[in-house]
């Protein structure tokens, strides 16, 4: 299965996907949140009839349009990269993964692309209420598209509602609803979209703060801040709540990722949460370079156990428990999982050979054995482990997982206070006097992007070496192609996306400078 696939090919393919995904994720959260914010602003315009709200709506809509275009550009590459660079994966899971992608296109993208035209060009062509409906449907369409792709991603983190079919050598769906409503999918969707709302709210507040510092468009800026702060505050509370549920999912279904992002090497009952920590260069375990000591570590007792299992004294397995096993707490050793995976692979190979040589009876018997629920549960669920040569590769980068998790969480907590202060100062009419806060508001914009990217780094790096948890290692998913070809496309995309990003930032900044009074466009 892994013939002709080398580490360089996997690394470059991963780098290309990461590059595309991270660029795409610069634009998507703003689209998700700003779409809703613009719809709220337009609703206020339609309800009050106040032309100031129309001006506000149209200004933010202009920025939405600039951001939307480049999000679309990066998004199309992502969809097709599943096929171009991960073709083995595409076949292995296409029966399940393809459905959400197709539904995304039919139900969400068309809604978005149909109504966005009315949103931008329909002001003088359709009624006020139809226009408002179009704006809401554009925002809903954008968020709906996020639903389907996140359902697919959640399935990769926790595969459910499927069975392996040896005949076709792939996973096949057995329950659409299980895939759609898996807790991992629900929490992931809610957490990701609400984090987009937070980012967009910070974007609106930060830019509005710039206007106040410059002493221009004050009414516009104050109104924008109020909408952004109220929406952002609700969104951040919800983001934290859903993040907590997501963390519990990870503890249950991806314990290695959970242990890595907490830097928990040895499990314990009543495990403490590392609130702050700094990883040193010294290795904590001579057999695994990845496990480093902590230089500084501030730990809050028992919180991790509660966070993971809602029990202050629950046992949380550490990385060593997951590698070496822990009989007392029923944790299977990685070596045991590997041997079970190998049995599953051997059985599949035997089935394929029997089929090829025309031994129908033997093939049927092997197939029955593979499809047996007990075999699927006890052996096939470890199928991917059969390809693991070194148990240490089962541990994701601890430093990357640890820092990305903690950056995301700490910034999330900061955002609560940020929104509260923004709201308080604006409602009290003091915002224009709080120069320091206004400057902080501008600098909070990149922090929102940092938190947002950190979340995805944690999700994707944290689940390595798996592309599908326990079933398919990333190495087995890649398209067999020359490393040089992937290097060429990697640099091609790096140049194209960076050029387009520079263009977008320059346009966006000019539009902000022009401001809400005289909007840009062809003259």
């Amino acid at each position, binding site marked *: 299965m892994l013939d002709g696939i080398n580490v360089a090919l996997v690394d470059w393919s991963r780098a290309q996907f990461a590059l595309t995904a991270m660029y795409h994720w610069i634009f998507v959260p703003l689209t998700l949140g700003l779409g809703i914010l613009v719809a709220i602003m337009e609703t206020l315009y339609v309800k009050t009839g106040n032309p100031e709200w129309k001006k506000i709506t149209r200004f933010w809509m202009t920025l939405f349009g600039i951001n939307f275009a480049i999000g679309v550009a990066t998004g*199309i590459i992502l969809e097709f990269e599943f096929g171009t660079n991960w073709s083995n994966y595409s*076949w292995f899971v296409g029966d399940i993964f393809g459905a959400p992608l*197709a539904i995304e296109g039919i139900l969400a*993208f068309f809604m978005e692309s149909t109504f966005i035209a009315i949103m931008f060009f329909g002001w003088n062509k359709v009624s006020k209420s*139809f226009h408002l409906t179009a704006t809401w449907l554009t925002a809903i369409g954008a968020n709906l598209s996020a639903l389907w792709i996140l359902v697919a991603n959640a399935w990769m983190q926790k595969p459910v509602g499927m069975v392996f079919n040896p005949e076709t050598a792939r996973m096949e*769906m057995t329950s659409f609803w299980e895939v759609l409503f898996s807790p991992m999918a629900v929490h992931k969707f809610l957490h990701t979209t609400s984090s987009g709302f937070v980012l967009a709210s910070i974007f609106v507040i930060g830019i509005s703060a710039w206007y106040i510092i410059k002493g221009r468009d004050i009414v516009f800026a104050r109104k924008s801040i109020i909408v952004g702060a109220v929406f952002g505050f609700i969104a951040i509370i919800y983001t934290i709540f859903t993040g907590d549920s997501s963390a519990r999912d990870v503890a249950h279904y991806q314990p290695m990722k959970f242990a890595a992002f907490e830097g928990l090497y040895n499990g314990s009952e009543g495990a403490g949460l590392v609130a702050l920590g700094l990883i040193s260069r010294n290795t904590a375990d001579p057999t695994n370079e990845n496990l480093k000591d902590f230089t500084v570590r501030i730990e809050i007792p028992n919180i991790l156990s509660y966070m993971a299992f809602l029990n202050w004294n629950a046992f949380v397995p550490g990385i060593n428990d997951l590698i070496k096993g822990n009989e007392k707490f029923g944790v299977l050793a990685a070596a045991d999982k590997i041997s079970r995976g190998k049995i599953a692979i051997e059985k599949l190979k035997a089935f394929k050979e029997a089929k090829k040589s025309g031994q129908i009876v033997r093939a049927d018997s092997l197939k029955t054995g593979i499809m047996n629920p007990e075999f699927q549960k006890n052996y096939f669920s470890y199928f991917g482990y059969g390809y693991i040569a070194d148990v240490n590769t089962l541990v994701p980068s601890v430093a990357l997982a640890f820092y990305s998790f903690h950056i995301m969480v700490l910034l999330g907590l900061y955002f609560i206070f940020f929104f509260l202060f923004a709201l308080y100062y604006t409602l009290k009419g003091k915002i224009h006097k709080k120069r320091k806060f206004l400057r902080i508001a501008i600098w909070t914009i990149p922090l929102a992007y940092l938190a947002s990217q950190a979340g995805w780094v944690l999700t994707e790096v944290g689940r390595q070496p798996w592309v599908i948890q326990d079933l398919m290692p990333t190495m087995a998913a890649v398209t067999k192609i020359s490393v040089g070809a992937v290097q060429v496309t990697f640099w091609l995309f790096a140049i194209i996306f960076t050029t387009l990003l520079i263009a977008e930032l*320059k346009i966006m900044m000019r539009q902000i400078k022009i401001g809400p009074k005289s909007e840009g466009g062809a003259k």
Partner: protein
Amino acid sequence: MFETLSLISLQQYWWLIVSLLGALFVFLMFVQGGETLFFTIARTETEKSLLVNTLGRKWEFTFTTLVTFGGAFFASFPLFYATSFGGAYWVWFAILISFVIQAVSYEFRKKPANFLGAKTFEIFLFINGLLGPVLVGTAVGTFFNGAMFSLDDMKHVTWGTPFRGLEAVLTFHNLALGLAVLFLSRILGLLYFMNSIDNEAIFERSKKHLLYNTVPFLVFFLYFVIALLFKDGFAYKPGTGEIVVESYKYLHNLLAMPINTIMFLAGVVGVLWGIISTLLKGGPKGIWFTGGGTVLTVWALLILAAFNHTSFYPSVFDLQSSLTIENASSSRFTLVSMSYVSLFVPFVLGYIWYAWKAMNNKKISSEELEQEHHVY
């Protein structure tokens, strides 16, 4: 409802849907065709703005249809997705990059401080307009002429040449389809300009260029169709799935599926009627006949490629690796689930039609652009 259908019926149903999406995509490539005509049709900056803006309000439909086509193919025939995209690496990336640069070009073109300048974005649109139709058409040509791949037991693809799909342009029959699609998209673009822009000079110039593009379109299209009917095709034996080369396979398919043949002929008549009536009468409605005809023709051609026990993605590198709707499809369960989702398609088409009408009930004019807030 769908549970009662046999697996082969579900596979055929999904091929019909994917093919319809493909056919709609070819029609919507009037946007790409139009993008190659900015420098030909427009004489002034205002005229160019009219051309750009009328297409700029529709480009997302084309784009979304392409994305949905990809998603639907992935969902219903994942082996094609894995094989073709993973195998013909360079072709698909060339197509995708041309769409990436398109996606930002309308929005960024006239915005102040756009970094690359309006001309660069116009060239991006031209590249998309040229490469998109030619490469998509050439790639579809491999449905009839085959591609260079093999699949192992685990369905992992190996490509037979280092050119990873680019070798398809060396088969003239593929390229002829690519060029036919290019000239058809330009014809559709011209007809759309005549339909949607309120400008006499643009109308007259578009009408003149309609004739210039119709001639090469007919040459390449007729060559493609005639050669198709006389060439060998790739059939599979029901039951065993063994792939065999069959003489006059596509001609046999045409004769074996009379409804499809009628659809094909009606489509061709529609395309020609839209062009001829516009050339003779000069009305703005040619786009609907040629557009409708395009959908019917392409749909019928794609059905011809896959029905009646035909391999829709043959391998000339390893014949038995060829893909058919039976060996490349999703499981029965997934096809049934997806079929329920497909019930939303008429609803989606309904609101697209409604929104299109609302936006196009008045032709775009330079006066409108002067008053418009959001201009490309």
